[in-house]
């Protein structure tokens, strides 16, 4: 049986940076109007950032739902202290919204009810997928270093009713540490960070000694300087049956980025034109190597030159 593959829906990942409260609220007011299907809300990087409390995110989530979108509460990716664990437990105990687990601790709290496994949960194979599905997994975000081959294999063997989401646009979250690197680069300790990560709304750029952008430091998280971008692979991800594509918020042009993806998915904009726009809006260039099994920093020209045109995509199902 042949059928046209359903279009992937668009999701907005949690804000990874420390933006002022007003900026966050304005950002979401704008995103409620954007062509997004799912919005992830919550602090995932540093427990010291408290400009918005869980209550604020729940309130935002209510508004997301009222706007006809799905709200998912996302959680901290590295849980070390009793306080962090307590907050996580409180967030996971609220059953109004789907919750995204980003640490094994969240799996412990969410087991037995529907949940999302974020890209910081190491789901690399079909057995882990089946194991988590039996415990309530409804959706998983592929670890960002995995590419199309593994995505295809996992999608072939996925349990019924489990959705697959790809990190499709944004600086890649690559690592987590006990150390705050933003503070470290100002010769401060984490305990005296003075929230200096707030000065870098898209992370602190780390370039090579030749000046080539390489990484971006975001508190305890290390990101890629390059913006990972799956727009050139839209046809392919649709053919594979990927359900959701995640746009990771940046401090500028996020709405335009979402619209570009949306227009390309609808077939209203060709990928080449979309790509040219995205290049303008990425802080330090685009990359997509992980998708084709190369270094994440690589720009895989092969993808960009593939035939585009979403409407032509079809999939064979058994």
């Amino acid at each position, binding site marked *: 049986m042949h059928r046209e593959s359903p279009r992937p829906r668009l999701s907005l990942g949690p804000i990874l940076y420390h933006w002022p409260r007003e900026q966050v609220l304005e950002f979401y007011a704008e995103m409620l109007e954007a062509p997004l299907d799912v919005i992830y809300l919550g602090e995932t990087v540093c427990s010291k950032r408290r400009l918005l409390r869980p209550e604020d995110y729940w309130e935002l989530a209510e508004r997301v739902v009222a706007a006809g979108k799905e709200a998912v509460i996302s959680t901290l*990716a*590295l*849980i*070390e202290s*009793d306080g*962090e*664990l307590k907050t*996580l*437990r409180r967030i996971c105990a609220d059953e109004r919204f789907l919750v995204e687990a980003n*640490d*094994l*601790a*969240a799996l*412990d*709290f969410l087991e037995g009810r529907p949940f999302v496994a974020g890209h910081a949960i*190491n*789901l*690399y*194979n079909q*057995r*882990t*997928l*089946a*194991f*988590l599905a039996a415990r309530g997994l409804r959706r998983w975000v592929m670890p*960002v*270093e*995995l590419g199309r081959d*593994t995505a295809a*294999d996992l999608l072939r*063997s996925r349990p019924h009713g489990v959705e697959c989401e790809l990190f499709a646009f944004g600086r*890649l979250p*690559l*690592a*987590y*540490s*006990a*150390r*705050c*690197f933003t503070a*470290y*680069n100002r010769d401060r*300790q984490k*305990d005296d960070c003075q929230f200096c990560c707030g000065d870098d709304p898209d992370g*602190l750029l*780390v*370039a*090579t*000694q030749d000046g*080539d952008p*390489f990484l971006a430091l975001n508190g305890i998280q*290390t990101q890629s300087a390059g913006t990972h971008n799956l727009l050139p692979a839209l046809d392919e991800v649709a053919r594979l049956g990927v359900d959701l594509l995640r746009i990771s918020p940046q401090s500028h042009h996020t709405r335009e980025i979402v619209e570009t993806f949306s227009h390309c998915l609808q077939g209203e904009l060709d990928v080449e034109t979309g790509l040219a726009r995205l290049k303008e809006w990425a802080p330090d260039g685009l990359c997509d*190597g*992980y998708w084709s*099994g*190369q*270094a*994440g*920093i*690589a720009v895989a020209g092969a993808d960009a030159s593939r035939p585009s045109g979403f409407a032509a995509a079809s999939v064979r199902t058994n």
Partner: protein
Amino acid sequence: MELVCPAGNLPSLKAAVDNGADAVYLGFRDDTNARHFAGLNFGDKQIRDGLKYARDRKVKVFVAINTYAQPSGWTRWTGAVDRAADLGVDALILADMGVLDYAAERHPHLNLHLSVQGSATNPAAIGFMHRHFGIRRVVVPRVLSITQVANLIEQVDVPVEIFGFGSLCVMVEGRCLLSSYASGQSPNTFGACSPAAHVEWRETPQGQETRLGGVLIERRGHGEPAGYPTLCKGRYLVNGTIRHAIEEPTSLNTLDILPDILAAGVAAIKLEGRQRSTRYVSQVTRVWRDAIDACQRNPQAFRAKESWHQTLAQVSEGAQTTLGPYHRPWH
């Protein structure tokens, strides 16, 4: 408190056993373990010889199968679990939930340890892994201070192993993709950080350059000692200044807080370095055996000997050591 020592090959295994290890850990010759380096690790014959050598001297043998399996390589990981089980080793050190699930179902009587690559840093995470896979030990990532380690031990039923000495991962183990971002291969997918095949060394008029996957990860002055080519220990341009943006070339050394480690109830101390020489294994095992014995005899009076520190500094990256995350100011 058990002393767990690295064995990259049979001579190192014997060196660890001869110098006072309570247990040695090793891996197979493929990407199923996190020290997947050319010329390193064990075939079945070496493991059998090693097992006999260790057993005759009442030393345990653990096998690390602590990378993440993808569907295309899945049978390599299950095969490794079965091989280790057939060999009758004392424990398997696993990280991947799928591999743990397989091992727990297929070999219910096998001792399973959760690898540091499993990224369990809190009681709920450890509880989850214990409930589902019956892990009998957890190796905790290098993110907790010693106070946090003590607090964790109070809250979990699973014995806790910590890293005491060796190369320092700055990131939470199992959740660091920096290597694959630059080279295409990471500890999770390939079993190596900054794999040698992707490292280039170049002499230029500006200095000696190290590149990983073509990315300049360090340029040092002529005559400056070359560190390991791991990208988290290189110098980069941040806000107009060239500096160690993530960490300096340094090794973890917890000798000075051994009484605190003992008092915290740590079940085992692991020494890093399966990729290091037999001489390294002999030296660090001997120092740690002597230190642990001295500390256990009289924790109050324990002082790390200067000669121990000298020996460890000589084999340390950048010839300097740090208490790392165990010491709060490092954070």
